[in-house]
């Protein structure tokens, strides 16, 4: 079975400082990995996805993630946090059968002035 573990339930950064949201995955084969963002009382928006084409994936709003097979990680980063980045972030892996998404528990990002 495919699963992801988000290592931090809450992350707090100051505006203008780097963001690091950590995610480890477990998969018996090459996984498809995603990061989704959910702003308060909003739907889910795809930030970026890894589908084996390139290990460094660039997404929207300046976010990127690097797939590291040796570490089974897919951490999300951004060089400089903005107040509007405050939201819930989900690391997600696609299942093998039917391709339903398996979500991590989420990381709540707080950005302080």
């Amino acid at each position, binding site marked *: 079975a495919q699963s992801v573990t988000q290592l931090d339930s809450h992350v707090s950064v100051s505006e203008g400082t780097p963001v690091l949201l950590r995610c480890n995955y477990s998969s018996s084969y090459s996984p498809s990995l*995603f990061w989704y963002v959910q702003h308060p009382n909003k*739907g*889910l928006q795809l930030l970026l*996805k890894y*589908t084996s084409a390139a290990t460094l994936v660039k997404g929207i709003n300046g976010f990127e993630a690097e797939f590291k097979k040796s570490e089974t990680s897919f951490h999300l980063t951004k060089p400089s946090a903005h107040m509007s980045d405050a939201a819930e972030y*989900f690391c997600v892996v*696609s*299942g093998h059968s039917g391709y*339903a*998404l398996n979500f991590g528990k989420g990381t709540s990002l707080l950005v302080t002035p």
Partner: protein
Amino acid sequence: AAGVIQSPRHLIKEKRETATLKCYPIPRHDTVYWYQQGPGQDPQFLISFYEKMQSDKGSIPDRFSAQQFSDYHSELNMSSLELGDSALYFCASSTGTSAYNEQFFGPGTRLTVL
């Protein structure tokens, strides 16, 4: 660009009542997924359909049923509602069934069971 449409956006029901949630996928998307997100929880996969046939089943209670119609819209029917069914229900659509296909999420239906 057209997005996934869900209706209603908010629904309030009493215990033991029934509810029907509707999902209209992006045009030309043939696959629909349903997810349930409880308060403070991560979304949990319920069920999916590809070309009007059930393609996968997750943690969907027996009290719930769903189907996809000829125009590809989908309905999630929930009976004998319980307090624990209060959640945000998301529908997502994609083209075909592939691990690489992005799922586009609707805004969700917030169901409150009193």
